[in-house]
């Protein structure tokens, strides 16, 4: 097992080099002037393009620029993000907990609802509930995140005034800013609020999570639902299920202990992709709901040609994918005892 984990972790530097090299080469498709133009925010600076190229050495050969960047990375410096106005590493440290908080709140309904509805659909194949579930999954999967997000915002914020965008209400923004009595242990606001004994802040933070979580859940759970349904249908037709039924086991036991457990294996594989989907999804969702996580930062960085931030986000995402896949592989062993790692 340890050898397996070590071998998978050794992939990290390979992925790192691959991703960063690809992005570096993509960036080189832009001329030094085009890259320097990203620093020029007004006509007042337009006569200084050459100086900016000199200052940031944008006309060096790509391998020198890449080598310089790698040299900094080795020292733990991923560069400076012009969008967040601070080092990339610091931005990731500051913003990742918010995204993780959102993802953790979302992953439970995504997987839970997906498995539950997929199971219900499979057990009621071709019945009304199955048809409804299938229609819902197609609608959910094909609905663009930004459309759903704006609909929810207009209805629950604009019309009903129940739920707000952002991470926390203004009264807490001003109260918590520079407040030495509120300590940030995890930078996940719901968790920190509870650790500080501030149930009011916790409730407020949860309220702000509802709409983005629904937005993420609808799209992602539709995928889980479809895979769970087909996988369970497949499992239900297997000989061991028929045998279990023939032995006289109750239907619920057969479904839960025999069929569903085996049907979960492709769902677990998919869960790794769901995590990636969530990270991709937060780029749009966080922007719509003004939720200050990594996704919002990445969207701003991409539109502002923030080279260091784009690279940093891509590297971080790639690392997350490798780790997520590793966790999925390890989960296989838990779900299916036949799978062992040498």
């Amino acid at each position: 097992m340890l050898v397996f984990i070590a071998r998978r972790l050794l992939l990290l530097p390979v992925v790192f080099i691959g991703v960063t090299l690809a992005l570096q080469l993509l960036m080189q498709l832009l001329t030094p002037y085009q890259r320097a133009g990203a620093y020029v925010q007004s006509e007042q600076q337009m006569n200084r393009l050459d100086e900016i190229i000199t200052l940031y050495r944008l006309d060096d050969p790509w391998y020198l620029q890449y080598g310089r960047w790698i040299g900094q990375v080795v020292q733990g410096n991923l560069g400076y993000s012009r969008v967040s106005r601070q080092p990339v590493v610091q931005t990731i440290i500051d913003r990742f907990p918010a995204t993780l908080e959102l993802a953790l709140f979302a992953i439970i309904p995504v997987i839970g609802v997906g498995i539950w509805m997929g199971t219900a659909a499979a057990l009621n194949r071709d019945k009304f509930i199955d048809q409804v579930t299938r229609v819902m999954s197609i609608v959910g999967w094909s609905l663009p995140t930004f459309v759903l997000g704006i609909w929810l915002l207009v209805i629950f914020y604009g019309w009903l005034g129940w739920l707000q965008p952002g991470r926390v209400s203004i009264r807490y923004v001003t109260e918590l800013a520079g407040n030495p009595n509120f300590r940030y242990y995890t930078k996940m606001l719901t968790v920190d609020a509870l650790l500080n004994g501030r149930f009011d802040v916790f409730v407020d933070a949860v309220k702000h999570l509802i709409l983005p979580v629904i937005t993420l859940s609808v799209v992602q759970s539709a995928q889980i639902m479809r895979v769970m349904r087909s996988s369970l249908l497949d499992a239900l037709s297997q000989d061991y299920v028929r045998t279990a039924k023939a032995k006289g086991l109750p239907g619920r036991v057969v479904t839960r202990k025999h069929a569903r457990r085996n049907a979960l294996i492709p769902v677990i594989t998919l869960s790794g992709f769901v995590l990636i989907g969530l990270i991709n999804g937060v780029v749009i969702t966080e922007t719509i709901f003004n939720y200050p996580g990594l996704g919002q930062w990445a969207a701003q960085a991409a539109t502002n040609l923030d080279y260091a931030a784009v690279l940093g986000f891509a590297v971080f995402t790639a690392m997350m994918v490798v780790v997520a896949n590793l966790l999925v592989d390890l989960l296989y062993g838990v779900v299916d005892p036949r799978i062992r790692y040498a």
Partner: protein
Amino acid sequence: MKRRSLAVLAGALLAVAAAQVPADTYVHMLFGEPVTMDPARAYDTGSGSVIENIYETLYSYNGEAIDEFVPSLATDYTVSEDGLTYTFTLRDGVKFHSGNTMTCKDVEYSFQYGALVAHPEGAIAYLMGHYWLGTQIDGSDPAAFQAEVTWEMIDNIVTCPEGPDGLVAQLNLVNPSPALIAILTYPGFSIIDSQWAIAGGSWDGTPATWTEWIGRDLTQEFLHRNPSGTGAYQLVEWTDDAVVARAFPDYWGGAPAVQNIVLQYVDEQSTRILAVQQGDADRITLNERAALVQLRGAPGVAVLEEPGWTTTSVTSVFFNFDIDTSNNEDVGSGQLDGNGIPANFFSDLNIRRAFAHLFDQQGFVDSVYDGAGVVLTMPMPPSFLGYNDDVAVRTIDLEAAEQYFRAAFGGEVWEKGFQFTALYNSGNTIRQTALEIIAENLEFINPKFRMSVRGLPWADYLSRTAERKAPMFALGWAADYADPSNFINTFLDNDGYYSPRTAINLSEIQAIIDEADQIFDPAERAFLYREIGTLHYDQVPLIAVPTQSPFMVVRDNVQGTYYNPMYSGQFLWKDISKN
């Protein structure tokens, strides 16, 4: 019990938010986060809107009046006869947010720091260079900077006749400027807390280390995130999605009415609109005027706009008087042969006048600004000293255009025709539309006249215009300080900021610009700039595009707002209150 707890929690979660902003807090939702809190590097609206409230300058604007200056950290000043020495008396007992007291050493430090960092992305490099150092070199090449600028020059920028802890500061210029007080209102000339800066690891203010700070990357330095100004508000928190500031209790001007300021950066416009409708924002910034239809008449929302309000940005269609025609696809053959234009095409006055008569000024206001705009008689904001609104404006008149084209180049243009491409930066629809209107109207004049319009990515556009390859292009300027010279010299001076792109060389206009630069009396200067307005009509050095009338969207309980276009936030936070 468990169910009851869940019900309470659910109730709390779904309770109507009723999240009106508290009365002691002002929330502005906008886009464009600050780049820095360091006045020496800030050159964007996002940074300016914070810096102008936490730092102060020696003189400032009188409310919404952009041509009236009132004492701020200085109480008065005198100027020497040659206009090179300004002596300021500093306000007594002014505290920085750190608790330090402001004296001459802080003024000295602030100006010296701004001059020596000379950051090419910063605001004050070119102003400090011109007026205090006599060079336009910046810090991107420290060796070249040191070759031209000595420590003695830096040291001489400000002197303290009564010693560093005195309250007299003397500014020593190398080039006089009748607009110096206006220039000093620019936030780049904010007074920094020298003790705070030095203690935090910024430049130590000595000649031993000054060279280490030339062109330095200030984003990693102390003042980038840790301001200590004298303003009515002090920075509490700056994250990349919000700025929180709190009233400074020891502010010399008295406590402001609003205790907390929150700037929330929300990229999604629909979210901002919903927020002001719901009362979660006291003010929002909109991307475009068209969105106002969603807000007019909304309960509790006020759309503020007045006929006298004008922006301090001017967009113009520029003529290139000496086009580089080599390997230049935008001028066709580069000859006056019907398939291109020659290098000096726009040097012909008839050509410039003809093109001015192809642009429908009022039609542009009506179609692009929905009627809410101002036609400019000359290329500067109408609210500036010397703006001449008695001058006629050349606008759409196809007969006049034809007449001028027939006269151009001794009739050769009319006979042979021409073709060229005008440029704009992609995504800027206002510039694009201005050029397209001209191109469309040109088609009615003569089938041999062909003008294309194409957009380029920003950086390509800048480099192409800088190489003088663009025969005609649309660009703009936003005021750094409220003085006509900031526009007239920039656009029309033979040696101005735009001259590398236009090669402009109009002797009559130049003579008046040079004269106005030497005169300090406002009335005389106004007269001269009005003369330039008259000459602008006659000589057509460029086509000034109408400006859009500004507006503000606020909650109706916000009091004390005004519109001063020189402030990045249009008004100072200390002047508003909420009821």
